[in-house]
Every structure is written in C-alpha cells, then in structure tokens.
C-alpha cells in the first residue's frame, strides 16, 4: 500500500500553505481530514481556490471529485473570493419575524445582488447568515463582521445606505 507516500509540493511558495500543511500533519494526512483542511484554507486564504482543492486531493489521497463534492456541500465554504466589504443579513427565525426578509428583498432590489453575489467591481459581497446567534438583538445585520442590531427595518436600510456610501 506504500504507493505514493511522497508529499506533493504546495501550489506556490506562499507561506500560508505552511498553515495548511500543519493542519494536514496534525491529522496524520488522514483522508478524514478533508473538512478540517478546507477550514484552514478558507481561514488563511479567505476562499477555497481550485488549486487548493487540487492540493488537498493530492496531499490526502482523496479523489478530486470527492474533495470537490465535500467543499461544495457545506455552506461555510466559499469558492469565489469575497468582495472588499461584506454585508451579511441574518435570516434566522428570530430575525425573520422582526423583518430581516424585508431587508433582504430591499438589498436585492436596491443593489441588484442575490445572496452570495459580489458586485462586478469586487467592492461588495452580499451574504445571508443562517443565525448569527444574536437573536436578542434581532433583526441583525453584519457590516464587515460588525454586528448591527435592534433597529427597525427602515432604520436598518438607512444604516446600510450610509455604510455603503461611506466607502464610495
């Protein structure tokens, strides 16, 4: 079974691959470590690129289609890089009851973005979150990770407008 025990080289000499290697090493290059390795990749690179999938597949000896299947199964992993700024709306039930659905619809209309999309100039990504766990502050949005909550739908729209125009 000692076929191909040689480790393949990382896609580039970017030092961040060392962190990816460290994760794989910690799991003994087990084929079960696909998800943990993808977590590390996303954490250090921000997204999961095609070359990183090939690297995981080659390093852990997991078939390409399987790695790809795992990476696309889970919501948390994004293949495309996100825009400079990320606007995220919580669509958990508590937020929904307090009007987050209206905020989502408004963003779609106002900025022409569907959840998961990024503007062509790569400035803004629009995401929806399942539940950020700040239900006490519902409805909740996140502007570049900063939680904004306890606002009415109209106040929320105003806040988003301000935040977006501030950048431009």
């Amino acid at each position, binding site marked *: 079974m000692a076929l191909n025990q040689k480790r393949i080289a990382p896609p580039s000499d970017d030092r961040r691959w060392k962190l990816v290697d460290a994760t794989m090493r910690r799991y003994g290059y087990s084929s079960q470590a696909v*998800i943990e390795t993808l977590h590390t990749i996303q954490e250090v690179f921000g997204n999961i690129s095609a070359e990183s999938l090939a690297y995981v597949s080659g390093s852990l000896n997991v078939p390409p289609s399987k790695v790809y299947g795992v990476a696309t*199964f889970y919501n948390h992993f994004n293949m495309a890089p996100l825009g400079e700024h990320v606007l995220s709306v919580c669509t958990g039930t508590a937020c929904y*009851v307090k009007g987050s659905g209206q905020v989502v619809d408004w963003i779609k209309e106002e900025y022409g973005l569907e959840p998961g999309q990024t503007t062509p100039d790569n400035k803004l990504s629009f995401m929806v979150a399942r539940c950020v766990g700040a239900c006490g502050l519902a409805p909740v949005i996140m502007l570049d990770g900063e939680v904004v909550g306890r606002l009415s739908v109209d106040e929320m729209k105003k806040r988003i407008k301000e935040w977006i125009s501030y950048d431009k």
Partner: protein
Amino acid sequence: MTNDELLALTEQERAEEEKYSHRIHICTGTGCVSSHSEKILETFQAEIKARGLEEKVKARQVGCMGLCAAGPIVSIQPDGLLYREMTPELVPAIMDSLGGEPFKDQLIDTNIPFFYRQEKNTLENAGLIDPERIEEYIAVGGYAAVVKALSEMTPAEVIQEVHTSGMRGRGGAGFKTGLKWSLVAKAAGDQKYLICNADEGDPGAFMDRSILESDPHRVLEGMVVAAYAVGASQGYIYVRAEYPLAIKRLKIAIKQAEKLGLLGQNICNTPFNFKIDLRLGAGAFVCGEETALMSSVSGNRGTPNPRPPFPAQSGINNCPTLINNVETFANIPGIITDGGKWFARIGTETSKGTKVFALTGKIKNTGLIEVPMGITLREIIYDIGGGIPDGHNLKAVQTGGPSGGCIPAEYLDATVDYESLKQLGSMMGSGGMIVIDDTSNMVDMARFFMKFSMEESCGKCIPCRVGTTMLYNLLGKFQAGQATRWDLKRLEELCDLVKNTSLCGLGQAAPNPIISTLRFFRQEYLDKLIDSEKTGETVE
C-alpha cells in the same frame, strides 16, 4: 486528580475570591460581545487600575446571563445587582456606586418573573464563572461527577443513575438517554466513540452555543462520565464553525482539563483513558442528524444513511458510537453528583428535568431561559417573557424550528413536555421558541421554514430533494394569490409524501411547519386562493 485534590483547589479558589470586596461580571456571550461587551470589560479593568483598586475589585468575563434583550449586561457580586445596556461611558458611574447606592438608571429589577420563575440547572454557572478558567468551574463543584463516577461507581451504576433520572435527549426527538447509553455499553467492540452534537443549526436557537460559551467544562465533564459509562476512548465535539467563541473556549477547556488529568490518559489516576477532539461543522443543518453527522465527522459530504444500523451498533469507523447533544451532556454532572432521583423530582411524569429555551421573536424579554418541564407556554410567554410588545396580540408560538410547528394562542395553557408539544403538532426540538404576533401571516411563516428545509436538504433522497422544492413553490403560489383548491390538495398530499418517505429526520419533519399551520390556521391559506376558488369546499 482525586477528591481531596479537587477540594483543595476549591478552597484555594474560594479564598482567592474572598479577597475582593466586589467582583464585576461582564457578559461575554455572543449576543453581548456583538454589542461590544469586551470593550466594557477592558474599560472596567483600566478604571480599576486607575483607581488603584486592583486588590479590592475584580472585573472578569462571564458567560450568558440570559436577558440578551438588555445586553450588554454587567452584574456586581456579591450584591447581585444587574445593569442593562452598558456602555464604556457608564463605567465610571458604576465604579462610583460600588459599596453605595446602586446606579439607578441602568439597574435591572431582578425581582421579576424572568428571574424567579426560571430554574437553572445546566445554566447554573452561566454568568457566574469565567468560562476560560477551570479553577472557577471546580470551585463551584465542577468535575466532582467525574471523580465520583470513576472512583465510586461502576459503568453500570452510572448508567443506572441516568436511567433513574428519566432524562431524555435534549436534541429534539427525546430518546431516553439511559437507554441509549446502555445500548452502546452493551454493543460489542473494543473501540467505541462518543460524539457531542454541537451543530446547532436551528435558526433562532442558541441554547447550545450559550452553554458552550458560558460553561464549557460542564459539557466536557458530562462527556467524560458518558465515555466511562459506555466504554468509549475517543470523543468528538462536532461544533459549528460559525461559533468561534464557543470553539475558542472549548479548546481552552480541553487543554485545561488535560493538564489537570481530568481528560486524556489515566483520568483521575485510574486506567480510564478518554480523548476529546473538536470537529468543525461547516454549515449544514442536516448534520444534526446522527448518521449525517458521522459522515461529516469522517470528512465526507454530510448525507444521512438509512437506519438501522443505528450508531449505537455501527457508527464512526463502523464502531459503536454514542451521540448526545450539548444540553444532554450538560445535565449529566448534576445527575451524578446529586443523583438521578434529584433530577427526576423536576418535571412531569414523562419529561424530567429542566429545559433551556432561546426565547425570541415578538416578545419583550428576549433571551435564554431555563425552565422546569411541565411549565405552561403562558407562564413562559407572559411571566418570564413579559408578554408581547407594542400593543400587539400573541398569535402563535413556534417550537422545534424548521422541524416543528406553530402552536396557536388558544393552546397557551398546554404544558411544555415532549408529549404535549407533539400532540399539538409541534415538538420540543432543541429549544428554539419563537413568539409570533398578529402582524405575521402563517403562510409566510410556513414558506420561510420551507425555504430553509429546501436549502438544507442534502439532495440524497427524492422526496426531500424535490418535494421540499415543490412545497416551497406551491406556497409561493399561495403567497401570490395564484393557488387553486387543487393546489391546496396537492400541498397536503405532498406533505404526506415527504413526511412518510424521506430518508432522514430532516425530510420527514420538513413538512411540519405546513402541516401545523394548515391545522390551526387553515383560513389563512383559504384566504389566499384565487378569488373564484374561495367558495365551495370540494375538489374534484
């Protein structure tokens, strides 16, 4: 670690505590952190230093105190004062008030039902101890259950105690915990696994997250006891990657417990070994289902498999595997230290103990509560929750998340236990409780949940993959006023199909939000039919 060593540590920690005349507790649960409670903690620490009070006053981070709607929350011990909506600017005023009159403006009246109607068990330490220090957990009696189980009890006796407690799984379905443990204990195999399911995916529920953030050692302790009882040597905590704070605190807790010999090799100087690793979930609700969770823990797509075989017979690496939810494990230490009978005294005939709920939606006191089983929905909503804000009326209570149902206002006196919620077409679920007022339409609610189930369907079996999509589309027809009576009939038939033929619990429960709203709010569906369809009851 022996009992004496545990006691010595407790003494030492308590003596340390008593040095301070005041201890300032700042909530650092996710809700309060979102409103910058860490900044408040820093400000307090700086202020204490500036005033030269380091020897007398201590400011520290604690877990969730429950009243998330009023966060960030700060409490002053030993006075037991609670302050709402704190800001760094208010810190000097609070400092001035120490030892004198409380600072009235932000004071929370603790003599309200929100506090005295609760019965805290799994949350007893939340808001009182620093979750990142094992010493504080030990000082309030932590890890006594591990020491007791390992030094005084046989695995069979541990399981017997859990049987006696009458405890049922807190993840949703309510399977008897003692029975589950004994199945794994009896299963043949040298290698056994244990998994703590912390993949809380129910949108609008944050019970498990709060427990992990507020008292992570409690969960580890429950896991060690369980591992001893069933003979598992490897444990996993499958926790959502979206819970960074819980992950951080679990990592710290595992290290600390290993260092004190409460986890790892030769726990408490006995031959018992048990290791815990974290596995990060990556955003898939279906992974709350046991077989899907195991697929995911093994690094695969989180798709479920038919049961039998059950995890207790063949789980991780085809070995017997025990899977319990966070809150279930968090209940174990109390059952071991105080006995199954102590636990069984709370609750109803068939539902024992307390249950944690995330109370959210159109309710005044949003937050995390723990109540005895058997309490009525009315007590939860009007006493603890403080009723419906803005002069609106209660319409329904949603429990069980996307797998549960909406209980209409007329059933408010129903008790909260596994059977009665099920009878009302809902379920206990993991503990999300969302209050809906008269501004919400129930068809919209049903479609909201159906969108969730559709997007979370793994796609493996046809009824769930295509059926949830069709249900979602059909509800869209209702929303748009385009539905006919024929569509209504199709909707009901499809609910029946998806419920009875889907492969796993996600699919089987996915139609529940529709079934329950059709049962109690049928008129709202009829109101949305195409005008010509509204009259006449028969469908050809």
